């Protein structure tokens, strides 16, 4: 049997191990900064627990605000993992292979941060067990609880099962390279005795193929029921039949943008140009372009019917959203920079294609947060009985506590993601190696050197 470092997966593992070296000074600076932001957010939350939600800008009219926007945003980008590793797997898009691991990790961490936003939004987090003790399945919140926990458990399982052969491989590599003993122990433990025999590989493939099919409807259900928290109410701008698919498309749209941005960061920080190639960015860019057009279409459907139909309360909402008032300029900026500009940036020919794609991805992420905010807050400011009839003028802007917790949420998300990439291989070694090994399988009689040349040619 060949020594591990002479096999294809052994060589890839060797390169991936390089990404797991301790943080560079620049990396440490970022970690430090993110930890400070996260700690500041923790302080803000402690303050909120002590004083109550009065430290937010939410009041009786705008009773949901930034935390709910964060919730929808993070649950939205959690769809990155499903798209890349499940949808692309089911459709046999082979180019997905180097991206699956980082996409699935986004799913996990986005779900954790997103779900915690709901708890932060609660007036009585101390009574969270009531959701189980007194659970009422008639409430869309219970649908969310069921759907999101299923999705989190499924995604964790999916991430882990796909990682088992990598763990077995990493245990060997870590031993050979004299990496820290905890790594060897951890990888060994997680590999649960996996040996790449044909039988075990077959079983693994069947499990992954089955889970890929199962996880897609679960992911669709997640953002559908998130949208139903809004659309099951009678409020203008929420009580809409297209909200389920509108939110699902929005989730995949922002999830794709998130994975493009994450890929660019990893490519730069860990020098993964060999694995995350122009082709990957190009293909995901096309996906983002298509999704932006679908999202434009949904947005048009949503607001044109409200405006044209002209039900008075919906007209007031459209007036607030698109008139010259507080939200008009924001809505316009949202539509131009997040819906219409990205497809142009991606689709137009010319130079700076990569830079334009990354710009588009960043824009989409910012704007999709804003879009969720524009779904939630203006509707809350537009009740059936206008607030002005009670001499009130709700004008919501997040307080320092809400802003601190929001920035901390992003910081925690980034930290989790960074530490994950230091503990686990951020590329799916086995998945990348599989097709290459198939190519070289025919040349097994040749020397190791010949194989190596073949592989490096194929990989780079």
């Amino acid at each position, binding site marked *: 049997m060949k020594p591990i470092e002479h096999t294809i997966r052994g060589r890839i593992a060797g390169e991936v191990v390089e990404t797991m070296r301790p943080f560079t000074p620049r990396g440490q600076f970022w970690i430090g900064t993110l930890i400070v932001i996260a700690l500041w957010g923790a302080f803000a939350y402690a303050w909120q627990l002590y*004083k*109550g*939600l*009065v430290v*937010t800008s*939410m*009041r*009786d*009219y705008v*009773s*949901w605000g930034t935390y709910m926007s964060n919730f929808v945003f993070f649950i939205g980008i959690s769809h990155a993992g499903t798209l890349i590793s499940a949808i692309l797997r089911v459709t046999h898009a082979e180019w997905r292979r180097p991206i699956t691991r980082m996409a699935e990790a986004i799913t996990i961490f986005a779900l954790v941060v997103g779900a915690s936003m*709901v708890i932060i*939004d*609660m*007036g*009585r*987090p101390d*009574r*969270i067990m*009531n*959701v189980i*003790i*007194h*659970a*009422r399945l*008639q*409430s*869309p*919140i*219970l649908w969310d*609880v069921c759907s999101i926990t299923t999705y989190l458990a499924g995604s964790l399982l999916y991430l882990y099962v796909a990682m088992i052969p990598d763990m077995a491989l990493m245990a060997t590599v870590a031993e050979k390279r004299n990496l820290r003993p905890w790594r060897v122990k951890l990888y060994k433990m997680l590999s649960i005795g996996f040996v790449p025999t044909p039988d075990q590989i077959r079983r693994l493939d069947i499990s992954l193929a089955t889970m890929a099919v199962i996880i897609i409807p679960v992911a669709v259900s997640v953002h559908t029921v998130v949208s139903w*928290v*809004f659309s*099951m*109410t*009678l*409020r203008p701008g929420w009580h809409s039949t297209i909200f389920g698919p509108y939110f699902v498309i929005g989730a995949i749209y922002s999830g794709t943008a998130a994975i493009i941005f994450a890929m660019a960061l990893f490519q730069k920080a860990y020098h993964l140009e060999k694995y995350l190639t122009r082709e990957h960015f190009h293909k995901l860019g096309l996906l983002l372009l298509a999704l932006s057009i679908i999202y434009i279409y949904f947005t048009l459907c949503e607001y044109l019917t409200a405006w044209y139909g*002209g039900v*008075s*309360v919906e*007209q*007031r909402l459209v*007036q*607030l959203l698109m*008139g010259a*008032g507080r939200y008009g300029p924001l809505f316009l900026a949202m539509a131009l920079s997040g819906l219409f500009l990205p497809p142009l940036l991606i689709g137009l020919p010319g130079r700076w294609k990569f830079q334009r794609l990354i710009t588009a991805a960043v824009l989409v992420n910012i704007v999709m947060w804003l879009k969720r905010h524009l779904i939630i807050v203006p509707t*809350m*400011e*537009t*009740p*059936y*009985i*206008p*607030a*002005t*009839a*009670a001499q009130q*003028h*709700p*004008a919501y802007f997040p307080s320092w506590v809400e802003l601190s917790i929001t920035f901390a949420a992003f910081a925690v998300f980034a930290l989790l993601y960074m530490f994950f990439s230091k503990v686990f291989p951020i590329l799916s070694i086995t998945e990348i190696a599989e097709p290459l090994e198939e190519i070289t399988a025919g040349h097994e009689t040749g020397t190791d050197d010949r194989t190596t040349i073949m592989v490096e040619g194929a990989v780079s």
Partner: protein
Amino acid sequence: MRISRREAIKSVLAGGTAVAGVSGAGVALARVGLTVNGKETVPVLSPEGELFHVLREQMKAAPVNDPKDPIVREGIPGRKWVMVIDLARCAGLRKCTAACNAMHFTDRNWIQVFEMKDANATAPYYFPKPCFHCDSPPCTKVCPVGATFKRQDGIVLIDNTRCIGCRFCMAACPYSTRHFNWGAPQQPPEAHARGYSPERGFAARKGTVEKCDFCPDMAAAGNLPHCVQACPNGVIFYGDENEDAVTNGLGETYRLSTLLEERAGYRFMEELGTKPRVYYLPPKNRRFPAPDTAGQTASTAPSPDPARGEGLA
């Protein structure tokens, strides 16, 4: 240990001395009781509809029902509480709001008086709005823990010892009826003295939702809600739909069905399908001038007029 209202009545009856002969049918709740052996009695109507005379000295105030008592969630048997608000009588004094706030130790205006104007050409009017205690309540439907619930006597209540503060009910209520305790409520010691009951709505708790409770504690004791009693113009009528009778603070009692028929009673935003338990009588032949400052548009208006600041919250 607290005892439920039913048990209180039973214990009085078991005392024997309290029962002083049940009067024949047709005798309504008399203002003055009989005198037995020189001792004053008070007529008491049992939940089953039987009338008793109970010695005053042996009477205790109906104890407040603990949130865990089943009767809090079931409601008063055989009753269907209902409210009628006569817009023609409302002068916008907001005495209802003040009384409600005072009696519930709050400043949250559980009953609010809006100034409404449905269309540019129509007359403005004052619009007192309590919780509508809908028969198809959008709020109780969405509550994940059953902290807000609909009772058999028609009342929608909130148990603030169970509420998790998710505020879904506030998002779901189309009438902006619910209030949230964003911070720690500032209430006097009296609010805490008698223990909490969802039927009374105080003391308020930080991080939980509250709203108009239709005063089931008052109804159980045979009294009208605070807002009804406080209105000097008798705008608000309260009563039992099963009895087909409503009474206002001036002591005027009407047959509910006749009142609604003769005065063209309606429910606010019937099209939402929430089936409110509060009826309105249109402001026809009004006793007081219309609010001249009213410049706000109600939901039924054809379109907001930005020139007057409408629609721009």
